[in-house]
């Protein structure tokens, strides 16, 4: 396990790159579904008026 | 067909000449930017002349960017753009006339001021012809492509930097080939390759730009 974390001192960059990718991909899905609820709430309010 | 083109060019130049103050803007802009660079960077001759082609062409790009919005803005506000669409002549031809008028106002003065810029930036004399040719071929592309950006944003009000963002990627090949043509000439190398690419760019712009502009105007007017 030690070998993976060290990766000849470049672990920071490799894990950094993968980390950022995962974060960006996951966040965009999360934001999109949050937006969906916001839209649904908005439409519902408009309906109630 | 040709004389309606000349009519549009004549009208636009007439409108521009009526506002004499604005006519001087491009030339002033070139002069200001070119004098700022040596002050900002360093007056050392060899360094400056290496930088000079890029400075000249970045200035041309910026001058085109800020002046291109004017092509359609006023016509859009006073409703004369609609009259262009109602004329029996193809719209792209009339729009081409307007772009030529814009080029005459911004591009041609640059041709005039090129020797002064070259002097200020220590560009050697024998390179001047290449600089002239590159300006002659390059600036029409800037006007044509810039007009596409103007047509896209004319309906939006705050055109401003949006045109810059839209048009920047399209200006980059022009910047690359034009400034490298001049720097190649300064090193005594052959420049025909770069100028040929610029010429190809010009032909491409001449054919595609009017179509893109009339399409964008139709959508902006919707």
């Amino acid at each position, binding site marked *: 396990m030690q070998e993976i974390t060290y990766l000849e001192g470049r672990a920071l960059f490799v894990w950094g790159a993968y980390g950022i990718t995962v974060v960006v991909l996951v966040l965009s899905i999360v934001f999109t579904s949050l937006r969906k609820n916001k839209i649904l709430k908005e439409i519902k309010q408009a309906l109630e008026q | 067909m040709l004389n309606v083109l000349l009519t549009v060019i004549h009208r636009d130049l007439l409108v521009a000449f*009526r506002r004499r103050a604005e006519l001087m803007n491009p030339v002033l802009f070139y002069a200001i930017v070119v004098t700022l660079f040596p002050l900002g960077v360093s007056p050392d001759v060899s360094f400056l002349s290496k930088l000079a082609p890029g400075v000249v062409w970045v200035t041309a790009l910026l001058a085109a960017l800020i002046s291109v919005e004017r092509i359609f803005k006023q016509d859009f506000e006073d409703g004369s753009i*609609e*009259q262009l669409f*109602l*004329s*029996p002549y193809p719209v792209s031809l009339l729009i081409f006339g307007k772009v030529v008028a814009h080029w005459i106002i911004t591009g041609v003065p640059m041709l005039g001021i090129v020797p002064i810029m070259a002097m200020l930036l220590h560009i050697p004399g024998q390179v001047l012809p290449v600089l002239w040719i590159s300006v002659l071929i390059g600036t029409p592309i800037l006007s044509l492509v810039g007009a596409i950006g103007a047509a896209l944003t004319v309906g939006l009000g705050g055109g401003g930097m949006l045109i810059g963002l839209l048009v920047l990627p399209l200006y980059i090949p022009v910047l690359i080939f034009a400034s490298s043509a001049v720097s190649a000439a300064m090193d005594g190398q052959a420049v025909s390759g770069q100028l040929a690419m610029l010429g190809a760019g010009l032909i491409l712009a001449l054919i595609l730009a009017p179509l893109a502009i009339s399409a964008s105007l139709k959508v902006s007017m*919707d």
Partner: protein
Amino acid sequence: MLKAHGLKCVRGDTELFSNLEFSVKSGEALVVKGDNGSGKTSLLRILCGFSHPVEGDVTWCDESIFRHDSFRQQISYVGHQSGVKMDLTVLENLSFMQRLAGEGSDASKLKELARYVGLFKQRNVLTRKLSAGQVRRVALAKLLLEQRSIWVLDEPLTALDKEFIVKFELDLKNHLDKLGLLVVTTHRELKLPEFRVKQITLS
């Protein structure tokens, strides 16, 4: 014959009008009534083919105007904005209109037209310096210059004085007599021969 089928127009979120039907024959006038913001201008712009309706279609001789390229060349349109360049003189504006309409330059005709609209004295004055009514006259002069079969006018009478309105109504009548077609929006009453006028109101 200009016909509209089920026209619907939406601006932003508000629906201006929907399934609007009408038909206008040559020699007839369509007067569009409706208060401000009811979509009168949008309707006129759709008829000129400048903008597309959300639903429905407009046909000229049973062919959709959006595919019928030469349709637009038969229209003279005077909208809210005058369509006239403020930095040019009256004569320069008229000569540009003349060349744009493809009739070649004929200075005497322009002078005569300027006199007809009562701007002969001001013919070499910058349009910027004229009053709103005078600018309107320059814009309306285009109708007589181009002699096109379809006139689409958006509030043509604004800022015009009584005396010119009477003369202008006469021109409209002649246009209808020559089997021209007229679509106009107006707040003031237009004295036109009753049997030729159709009226629609946009709510």
